[in-house]
């Protein structure tokens, strides 16, 4: 078997081929195999993947060479190498897993003749996303698959697939997994999905408004877990304040249920949560077409709110925040009851 390596592998294309051969072997024999030379082959595989990585990222001695990178990329996606990488990842040792993850991540950005061939490949092999996402359920694989996944959803079509899939619902659980590192990784992916590709996100949110925000409120904003609430309120602000989501925002701020949740968040002990909540709350107040029930809630709580805002400060001076705050205070102070309802300050 040594024969393959006698003449030192030179071209990136060769390296990819050899890697693929070894991965095919690993895929076939399985992890517990006592087949002779297995360890040796695993070691060779580790070295090969490391070489691929140093071609793509460069090393302390050399910058990456774009020609070599595109040769590598081309050969990689010419056949089903990515699938092998993903499927065999659990059988590799930790160091090789990390290298493999970095190789896969990098390849998502490599252009060959100004085309992202990784994207074309993934569109034809979109089921790979299912494997990557399910990785969050396996503590050993979660961080590796998670890192790959975040790179793959840089492609808009891939992100759209994930957004529209049933997997979206699972993220509400993944981001609350007890393992902090995994939960945080899932949180980063979730955020990326909901903020990166503006038009796709806007489309997703308006199509899935009902279940998405119901779950978002119930499972995230009203979670008992501090970190979940904190990240959720931050992300909610990011989504609603994005111009491309203005339609969704307009809808969101007409719901008294949403307002109730936001007002509860405003009262949290945590300064971070309070401040993020303010950035969403201000949208309810700024809305020029406030429904009567929103107005009446605001009027009922006017004194409490004004008292709260009186000593509501950010740590560092923040002019924008102060300006927003005084605007909100002004609006609330000037509110008149609509329809037949009576003001009942108290």
């Amino acid at each position: 078997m040594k024969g393959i390596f006698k003449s030192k592998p030179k071209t990136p294309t060769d390296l990819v081929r050899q890697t693929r051969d070894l991965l095919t072997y690993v895929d076939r024999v399985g992890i517990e195999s006592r087949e002779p030379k297995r360890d040796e082959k695993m070691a060779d595989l580790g070295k090969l993947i490391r070489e691929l990585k140093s071609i793509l990222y460069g090393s302390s001695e050399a910058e990456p060479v774009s020609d070599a990178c595109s040769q590598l990329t081309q050969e990689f996606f010419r056949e089903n190498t990515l699938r092998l990488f993903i499927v065999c990842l659990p059988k590799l040792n930790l160091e090789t897993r990390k290298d493999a993850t970095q190789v896969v991540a990098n390849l998502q950005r490599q252009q060959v003749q100004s085309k992202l061939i990784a994207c074309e490949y993934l569109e034809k092999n979109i089921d790979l996303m299912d494997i990557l996402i399910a990785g969050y359920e396996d503590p050993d694989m979660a961080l590796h698959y998670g890192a790959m996944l975040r790179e793959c959803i840089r492609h808009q079509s891939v992100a759209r697939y994930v957004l529209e899939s049933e997997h979206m619902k699972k993220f509400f659980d993944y981001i609350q997994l007890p393992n902090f590192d995994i939960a945080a990784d899932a949180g980063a992916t979730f955020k990326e999905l909901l903020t990166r590709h503006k038009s796709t996100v806007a489309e997703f949110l308006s199509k899935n408004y009902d279940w998405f925000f119901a779950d978002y409120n119930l499972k995230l904003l009203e979670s008992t877990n501090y970190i979940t609430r904190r990240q959720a309120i931050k992300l909610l602000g990011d989504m609603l304040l994005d111009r491309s989501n203005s339609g969704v925002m307009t809808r969101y701020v007409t719901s008294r249920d949403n307002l109730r949740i936001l007002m509860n968040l405003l009262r949290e002990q945590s300064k971070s949560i309070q401040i993020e909540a303010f950035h969403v709350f201000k949208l309810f107040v700024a809305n020029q077409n406030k429904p009567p029930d929103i107005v009446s809630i605001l009027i009922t709580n006017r004194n409490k709110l004004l008292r709260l805002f009186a000593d509501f400060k950010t740590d560092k001076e923040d002019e924008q925040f102060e300006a927003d705050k005084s605007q909100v205070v002004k609006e609330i102070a000037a509110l008149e009851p609509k329809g037949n309802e009576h003001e009942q300050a108290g």
Partner: protein
Amino acid sequence: MAQKDDQEDEPKKVLYPLDPNSYQILDEIGRGMSAIVYKAICIPMNNSTVAIKAIDLDQSRSDLDNIRLEAKTLSLLSHQNILNAHCSFTVDQSLWVVMPFMSAGSVQSIIASSFPDGLSELCIAVVLKETLCALAYLHDQGHLHRDIKAGNILIDSNGSVKLADFGVSASIYEYNLSHGSYVSSGSSSLRFTGFAGTPYWMAPEVVISHSGYSLKADIWSFGITALELAHGRPPLSHLPPSKSLFMKLTKRFRFSDYDKEDGKKNKKFSRAFKDMVGLCLDQDPSKRPSAEKLLKHSFFRGCSKSPDFLVKNLLQGLPNVEQRYKEAKIKGQFSLDSRSEKDDQEDIMEGEKVKQRRISGWNFNVEGFEMEPVFPGEKEEDDIVKQVRFGGEMIIQEKGGEQSDVSCHSSPGQDGAFCNVAQDISNVDIQNLAIGGENCEGGYNKEVMLKGLLLLKKSLEDQREKVVNIIVSLGGGVDDERSNEEQLKQMNEQLRIELENEKGKNHALESMLQSFKSRLSNE
């Protein structure tokens, strides 16, 4: 003694419970601005001892990406010289990071408690070699540590050495999600901007930051750490850790720099050791050796001691971590000289916010840290770094003079130096006040305080000398005494004006509040 779970090359990872009720906290063994480190036992794991770093998440206001990356880094690194986390999970507003308990604590705390004048060269070689292995691994993985120092090198009861505290570490393979930009193109050209680490150990290019920093900044800090182990503290640590001073002073670290500080002790070091340190402390980052290469240096090649060596020569008769922490805490309360000890203790397994506090080490009591951090938050530091982009030499030649703005952080060159003096003096007041306050309540140790004050005096004198030197070098040497005083007066005046301004602002705000109130009551 601590039970250590030995991690073999491919460990079947032991799963620690992700539930706070499975742990029983025994003792506090370290504390930082936003993190506390506890010694604890894990009940379902045969009561095995662990260390738990509890990070207050609400203190880090920005998004939690740094903490996420730290946790990820920790769980994906696997090396015998790197302190891993068993697991991490949130408990209310805290993140608990469960780690192996390193029962001998940090090398810095060992030095502070038993080797105030530094370690023997053999011990240094063992500790540094193990640390360097960790560093070589980290760098190979594309991670920077960014805070190498004795306070972050931990030792277990069996003599094993591990590098800890990845609170400020950065990865060159992480992509910056928020900007969608690719941080990395190849390790040789990797540049990080941003400001992290502890001043005394910082590489000049990090302080001045015209080039950002690379893996080589860690090598510099490694060299400073070598000096720290040799002498018991890093060079120049008798000076307050101000950035502008460092910009000048990082230029000339020599073994001889210690002569002035502790003239009596005349330690001899081998040529190999001196040569190794010299390589690390090259001004030009590109000339510093890589960690990998440094491992082959004759200083380390000659070192083949086993961990037992450290057990016999370093750990024997050492008070345990809890005791040392308590002692340092008591000492630290009144002693002006305590900053290195405190620093260390707080660093045992450090929290991520701590860098801010570390920098303000000149302030000796906890309240003081909050009152007067010498450097403000990280973000502002970035700005500062931008502002002081003059490059080493230029700074000193810059005609500074009167127009100095009051903020020490942004004023380059000798302005900074003057500011430091002013700041030190204001610190003295604060400190005296604080001591006075403590005095009323619980009494204080005269001797310790006297010692501290003498030290402070010496430090001030040193500062003065530096300032005088700068003045002389600018040709203004004749009546330096007066100009110095004038500078201070001016500074004072400016501060006074600023105070007035603040008062005015305050007043305006109050009247605004009044008008709001009256408006409200009118409704």
